[in-house]
């Protein structure tokens, strides 16, 4: 049956070069029965899928009744799982968007090491690409720009800085209060 809703992605899986899970997100909101409920079923699916797709550069496969698009970069495999009837190219657009955005964020040459080192960015990029099974954005530049960079721990800052900060803060707070009051 043709999918008429926006729920398109059933799962996103990132595996390492041995087929071990780095990140896996199975979406539950979409219509129909969720295929892989328990961790055991999920892991089984992942390892079988990995067995089928490692050492190929084929981009797409029908596996276990699902359309799966995937991409690999050195020792990282990224899979996007969709409906059996889903438009492969649509899924691919989302996968490509996510992959390119992650590559941008980790400064290219994606590897397992880089995924783990930049875990915060990778999970945020995923969140900016897919929202509970709905493709949120496919443009890699937008995804990457929506992911904030790490801040710094400003523990010992100079006195003058603090003063300035507090004044601005106080102003902001006052403005917010005022706004809230207006909205009520």
């Amino acid at each position, binding site marked *: *049956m*043709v999918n*008429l*809703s*926006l729920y398109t992605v059933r799962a996103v899986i990132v595996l390492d070069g041995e087929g*071990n*899970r780095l990140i*896996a997100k199975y979406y539950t*909101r979409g219509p129909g029965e969720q295929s892989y409920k328990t*961790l055991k079923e999920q892991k089984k699916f992942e390892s079988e899928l990995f067995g089928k797709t490692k050492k*190929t*550069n*084929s*981009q*797409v*496969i*029908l596996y*276990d009744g*699902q359309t799966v*698009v995937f991409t690999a970069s050195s020792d990282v495999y990224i899979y996007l799982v969709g409906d*059996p*009837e889903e*438009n*492969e*190219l*649509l899924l*691919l*657009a989302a996968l490509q968007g996510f992959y390119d955005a992650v590559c941008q964020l980790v400064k290219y040459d994606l590897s*397992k090491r880089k995924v*783990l*080192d*930049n875990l*915060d960015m990778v*999970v*945020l990029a995923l969140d900016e690409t897919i*929202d*509970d099974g*709905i*493709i*949120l*954005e*496919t*443009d890699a*530049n*937008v995804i*990457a*720009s*929506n*992911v*904030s*960079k*790490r*801040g*710094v*721990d*400003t523990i010992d800052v100079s006195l003058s800085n603090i003063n300035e900060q507090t004044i601005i*803060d106080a102003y902001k707070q006052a403005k*917010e209060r005022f*706004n*809230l009051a207006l909205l009520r």
Partner: protein
Amino acid sequence: MSWKKDEDTDELGALMNLDQSTVMQEARVFNETPIRPRHSRLLLAKIIFLLYRGDKMSTTEATDLFFSITKLFQCKDMSLRQMVYLTIKELSTVSEDVIMVTSSLMKDMQPKSEITYRANAIRALCKIVDPSMLPGIERFLKSAIVEKSPSIASAALVSSFHLFKDAKDAVRRWSNEVSEALNGKALSQGSSFFGGGSSAQNQVVSNSKIVQYHALGLMYAIRQHDRMAVLKLVQSFSGQGKSSSWMGGSNPTLRSDMAQVMLVRYAVRVMENDSSLLPQLYTLLEEWMGHRSDMVSIEAARAMCQLRDVTAKQLTPAVNVLQQALSASQKPTLRFAAIRTLNALARTHPEAVQPCNVDMEGLITDSNRSVATFAITTLLKTGNEASVDRLMKQMQGFMAEISDEFKIIVAEAVRSLCRKFPSKHSVFLGFLSGVLRDEGGFEFKRAAIEAIMDLAKNVPECKEAALAHLCEFIEDCEFTKLSVRVLHFLGEEGPLTARPTIYIRHIYNRVVLENSVVRAAAVSALAKFGVSPMADASLQRSVNVLLKRCLDDRDDEVRDRAAWALRMSGCNQTLRDKYVRDDSTFALAVLERKLVEYCADPDASSKGSFNFESIPRISRAQEEESRTRARMENMDAVLTGTTISAPSGSGRQAGGTESTEPGTPGIGSGAAASGFMDSFEQQVQYASQLNAIPELAVFGEQPLVSSAKPVELTESETEYVVRCVKHVYESHIVFQFDVTNTIPEQVLEQVEVAMEPEEDIEGVLQPVVVVPIAELKYDQPGTTYVAFEHTDPETFPAVSFACTLKFIVKECDPATGEPEEGDDGFEDEYSLEATDISAGDYMQATYIPDSHTLWESLGVDGEAVETFALASFDSIEECVSKVCDLLGMCPLEGALKPKSKAAHQAVFTGRWLGRTRAVARTRMTYQKGAGVTMELAVRSEDRNISELVVSAIA
């Protein structure tokens, strides 16, 4: 910027082996003041990593964690805040009281917050919000939907889509805003009122225009039940409202490819069932096929291929688009999409796909295995005799390079080709024997020898050559199972050839050289040569000599078989035929169920031994047919991952089990005969369903005679959809009604079917039990039963029943399906089409071996003959399958496949009430204009029964 800088001990491995309790300990950092944003963000990432890795978190742990995370809202750091949103979303499904952060999120949603803040806050808020709180945030969501920043608009639209399931009414109220977002007015607006707030961040402009995709999706969800509105939506974007641009309003366009894909789907959905709109749909699809994006053109082409009643000519543009996509060398996914569509199309319109044959042949060696598999299976359907040689040569070329798994696919493919083009047998046989000599695993070799056996069976000219290849194969076969299989086959086919002795030599070699399992199989095969009616005295003698030698074997099974075979060779021909050359077998599904029941029943052995008579029998040929068909379907389904379902117009047919859907006709023939096999599988399912109901399980102790095919008692698009299945027991008849409620606003209670006989059945059929459906919710099929006792075993009434569905209706909330409080409902009824019992229902369709002898021995005493003039049939084929249905008997080989259009003979066998054997012979002739004239002769052990059977046709 690595983890190492932050925590010196954190190695890569340490992260992989991250321990949940350690992280929980570390989470105390969140309570420190001042907050360390960087440190906290990394820790949150670790928590998410744990969750994504699959670790389970208890509710208490999650709640504790959640509350310490809420403290992080005090920190204004952007990078930390984003991670906080994500963590809240992830924890919202595990933790309690997530509602606590509502106010913090609301604050971030305010128009003056930064864009990333706002988009993320909206999405997070909608995850935790309760539908009852929706009015409080409705205003913000509405303004966010029309926000000029795409991120915010998308976030709001997507969140609304999530909410739609639980809060349909609220989201419906936003349709004006959604429509504004869809038409892109918001995008072209000048600086928004709150522009100052968002200018702080340098927004990267999205090229995907994905807002339209989200808006269109939500719009459709809101309007999906309003056909006209959807139609208008489709037309407004399809450039068909051109006149409106005259009037000044610019025609809205879809700039998002993904939105365009959705539009194709909506268009098909809303237009394909209306014949007046079909031409318009064709034009639209054709136009969309030329879209610059592959995504859209493939979607349109695919939609075109799935349309019902489309002709091969109309498909030409679609096939052209797909053909071009096949040669997209840089895009495996595009090739895949195209070949997958063509593969599905080849099932319904093989002739339309033929122009792509050459392109597909090029794909057999594609680096993407799925593409190659699709190419092969498609070529099987579209290929013609001329291309076979080329195809085989190509396959031979790459056999050595491919994996075993793929070799199996090739072997299966060749097997199907053999069936399709028997005249090319020498090419196939050469190929198969060639690959048998190569290295390969069990499954692959099995597929190859099965293919050779198929050839031997179906193409008489090459039988000897095929058997010779098999003999050669077992000379050096490492798989015991395969040796046994081949030996059995040699035993079946060898005796019928002109020179059986050559095979005997090969078989006896196995007795000398192999392990005990193979030796036993070889002895059985030898025995078949000995008792064959073709065997002359000298052959029998030499077989006996060989068998006698086997009496000294080390293994007792081998000795037993040899002794038994020797004893058989002394018996007369009838007995031999019965034991050694039986051509019938049990319907395995039924046999299995009966045996399981027998074993499960503690006092079964006291009731006597297992009754084999009650198991329907089928011929080996039928068994073979059904296996072949199952294999063909498997080949399509398993190898390519899934079946591509038929175009769906009326949505999922409720209650329609898979077995009732028409199977794809297998290559070759015999779909009808295997449909007959399916009915046994179906019976097994029914029987276990019936036995699960206490009121009906008592009947289950009697053998189930037959279960008829389901009959629709309503149109498929009415308020209540009802199907009836009849189950006939020795002394009971059970009517099973599968009911589906198609009204979302109603819950039915106490659903049952009242059956009024149209003739007097007093003293013959006695209603005994009615099993109602307690509660029938929308779209959840339920089953009610009505059972009759057959009190007079001498008469078999053919009677019609007027059926009425009776029930209590209660209004309910369509969203929850719960009936409204205090609604006692009212009684209502709904009349159904009549159902009837006819003579065919009392018949158990079972195969009786050697029906010819039975026919002779029954003689004319138990015969009933009648001639019918059936003017309403247009062909013999149609008539014979109708007759088969009415008689409820098992068609013998060829019965359903008339060879000539003018005259046909068919034989059916069955057992009346599972006991009395009956054989029916029909002769029919067809003349254009006059219809079919049929003579039906039935013989059975009881003349009355013969007459009853004849009366089934009327």
